[in-house]
């Protein structure tokens, strides 16, 4: 509890710091201008989404192996948070794209993969609500593994698919040397976001554990009443 509170305060301060860095310290990008500053939140959000889904994948395997409810709670907590960050990516991306590529959406592999990722984990969360008994843990774990395995396959298939539509990549990931000040702002933001993910995970995990206990107590009282 104490650690969580402390972490909350640290993250609040770091968030303020990264906003300051992003808007006043980092220089403006020459070609893209102000909209480029979405980058400092867009990319860390994407990183968090992938990290969260990777954690869901790992804890799903661990759950099937060890059958500990804690692993299952971690998996669902992480999936929910990942879904939220994935939504942030899908909202902030088109805004940035409209400003720089002059289109809200193109079927670029990373965009498409993120969209499919979002759909996959939306399905995962629907699955969690569709069952009330213990089966949902098994099912969710299986889906958590299948969905994550699917991600690289989707990525490569969309890349080939796109390369036929547009012979030349619309956006070539060019290695531009980043201004050191930009880099600092970016990495502070990335660090803050990662901490934020861990913080949310801790909170959501605790909520999940409590709700599991409540469920158990409810079932026990129901049984006692029936007796």
């Amino acid at each position, binding site marked *: 509890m104490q650690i969580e509170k402390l972490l909350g305060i640290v993250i609040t301060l770091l968030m303020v710091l990264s906003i300051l860095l992003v808007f006043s310290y980092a220089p403006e990008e020459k070609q893209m201008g102000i909209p480029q500053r979405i980058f400092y939140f867009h990319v860390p959000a994407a990183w968090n989404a992938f990290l969260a889904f990777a954690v869901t994948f790992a804890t799903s395997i661990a759950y099937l192996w060890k059958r500990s409810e804690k692993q299952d709670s971690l998996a669902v907590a992480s999936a929910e948070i990942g879904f939220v960050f994935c939504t942030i990516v899908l909202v902030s991306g088109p805004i940035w794209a409209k400003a720089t590529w002059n289109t809200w959406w193109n079927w670029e592999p990373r965009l498409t993969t993120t969209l499919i990722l979002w759909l996959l984990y939306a*399905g995962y969360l629907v699955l969690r609500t569709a069952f009330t008994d213990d089966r949902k843990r*098994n099912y969710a774990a299986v889906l958590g593994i*299948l969905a994550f*395995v*699917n991600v690289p396959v989707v990525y490569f*298939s969309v890349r080939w698919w796109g390369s036929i539509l547009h012979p030349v990549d619309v956006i070539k990931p060019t290695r531009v040397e980043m201004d050191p000040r930009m880099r600092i702002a970016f990495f502070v933001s990335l660090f803050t976001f990662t901490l934020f993910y861990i913080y949310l995970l801790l909170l959501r995990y605790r909520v999940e554990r409590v709700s599991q206990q409540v469920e158990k107590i409810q079932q026990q009282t129901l049984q006692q009443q029936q007796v």
Partner: protein
Amino acid sequence: MNQLYKIAHLVRKDMTMHLQNKETAILIFLFSLLVVLVFSFAFGPIFPQDLVERGKLAGSVLWASFAFAGVIAMSRSFAQEQEHGALQGILLTGIDPANLYLAKVISNTLFLIVLEAMLAPITLVLMGVMDMLGIMDMFQLLGVIALGTLGFSAVGTILAGMANAGMGRESFLSVLLFPMIFPVVIGASRSTIALLTYRELERRGISNQGIMDSNWLLLLIVYSLVFLAVSYLLFEYVIEQ
């Protein structure tokens, strides 16, 4: 050996049930035909004059209707097992749950291939692209259909095992299954389009190797193998009660 024998028996059981109880097959066939018609009415009645464009349209519509038909077929694939504790009965024979999965994948794939082999010519005729296929191309198309359907069933069967117990079977399964099978839809429709258009492209002096032109077949094979393997390992957790 014993397990192989059991798999063969399960596949035979499913096939017999499909043959005896044709309602499901007819229903799914009509449904997928209606999907094709919905697309025809939405895009038609004058399809693109350009043969390559028309081939693209036909290939896409074909796989869109296969995908919808496939979801309906999958959602019913465990219906009989759920009734009267038939699943417990099957498991009591000592079959490995993973092999039960394999048997279901095989029977689902066979069932869908037969269905799709009937639907494909009708779709191609309706879209006016039947003449673009030679005899050999038809066999190749059958091969693409088989590969795509195998990948579809590999994922569909394991998800159907979950969705069957859930509420609103069909819609629930669609939500889980569609995001998973986009690579199959992409790979299979591109291969089909390549088959339909390569002669016309060659006639225009654009040299191409048709279906071998790209990685789509490889994608379909890799996809099927990966998901067969992963689902084979995971299936026991799905039917564990």
